[in-house]
């Protein structure tokens, strides 16, 4: 008997379609119709689950943040040493962000849609939130008071080196990421 993947629930299909459409048309030009078409459902179905484009984007973003956070926590927890965990989390984060079509489209074509939320005051809140939610990635090596600040610092490093233009180092490459992190970052987070 052939194994058949369980059907993807329609609200998840709709959420996934948001990023496909943003990667193709950008945020401003994506319409609810585009998303419904991409998800293979009707407008009426879409409106049963979501109030409109703004709510849809917000919930898709929250789901995506949770997915990436869980993936990074897994990467960190399954590493052998603290240094390995830092490298694994940073490399996985860089790969997720660099390979994210919707994010990359926005960084190039609608930077204000992304960067407005990542700098100054709003950036502050994002860093603290990411630090808090990513802390479990390091809880095998650091206690709670150390893990969140360490995760926040790594979020800063990734924000500067992966999201900003002209990065001098390719963090998607484990070897260059490790050399860099072991020299400058890990010694700063390791000893308490």
């Amino acid at each position, binding site marked *: 008997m052939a194994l058949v993947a369980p059907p993807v629930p329609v609200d998840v299909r709709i959420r996934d379609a948001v990023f496909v459409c943003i990667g193709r048309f950008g945020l401003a030009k994506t319409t609810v119709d585009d998303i419904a078409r991409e998800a293979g459902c009707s407008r009426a179905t879409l409106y049963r689950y979501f109030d409109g484009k703004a709510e849809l984007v917000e919930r898709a973003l929250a789901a995506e943040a949770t997915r990436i956070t869980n993936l990074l926590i897994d990467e960190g927890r399954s590493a052998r040493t603290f240094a390995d965990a830092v490298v694994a989390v940073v490399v996985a984060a860089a790969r997720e962000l660099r390979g994210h079509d919707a994010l990359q489209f926005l960084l190039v074509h609608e930077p204000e849609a992304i*960067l407005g939320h990542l700098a100054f*005051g709003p950036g*502050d809140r994002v*860093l603290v939130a990411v*630090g808090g939610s990513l802390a479990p990635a390091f809880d095998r090596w650091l206690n709670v008071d150390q893990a969140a600040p360490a995760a926040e610092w790594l979020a800063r490093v990734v924000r500067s080196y992966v999201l*900003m233009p002209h990065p001098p180092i390719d963090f998607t490459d484990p070897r260059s990421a490790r050399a860099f992190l072991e*020299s*400058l970052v890990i010694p*700063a987070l390791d000893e308490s």
Partner: protein
Amino acid sequence: MTDTRLSVLEGTYECIARRGMAKTTVDDIAAASGVSRASIYRLFPGGRDQVLRETVGWEMERFFVRLGAELGDAVDFAEFLERALPLARRDLSDHAVLQKVLETEPDRLNALITLQQHRVIGAIAAYFLPLLVRDRDAGIVRPDVDLAQAAEYVARLSLSLISSPGRHDLADPTEVHRVVHRELLGGVLTR
């Protein structure tokens, strides 16, 4: 930079200070700078967007030049950073034009500042490098550290700290001492 180019940037800065970025037109810039529309388009082929972008980058550079002059010399790099971070944070918070535009047009300004950031990162890293070299020669920086890479790292993360301090209170000297010696220079210093 030519005098005319500088006049355009200064005029644009005045316009932004007065009415923000969205409402500043090339005509306003021409009037404020005393440079004709034709010359503005010749100097900045990208037009209004390019002028606004370069004005933001130019003011960012000026900000750090002023900061450097205010700071003067220090015994070592760590001490320099301990004085620089609180002062930079304070000057950013007191920067009237920046704070006004951050309030009225945050998304647009944040995007421009981020995209212009590499201009100042290079300049700040170049300023830091000789300080690191001096400390390595004095034996307080590890001999095996790639100093150019370290200078850029500290430049990037210092910018990050002064614009979004997160959990770090840069007005608290104990906290600043800690973040300088641990997060910023933990991999660099011998002690």
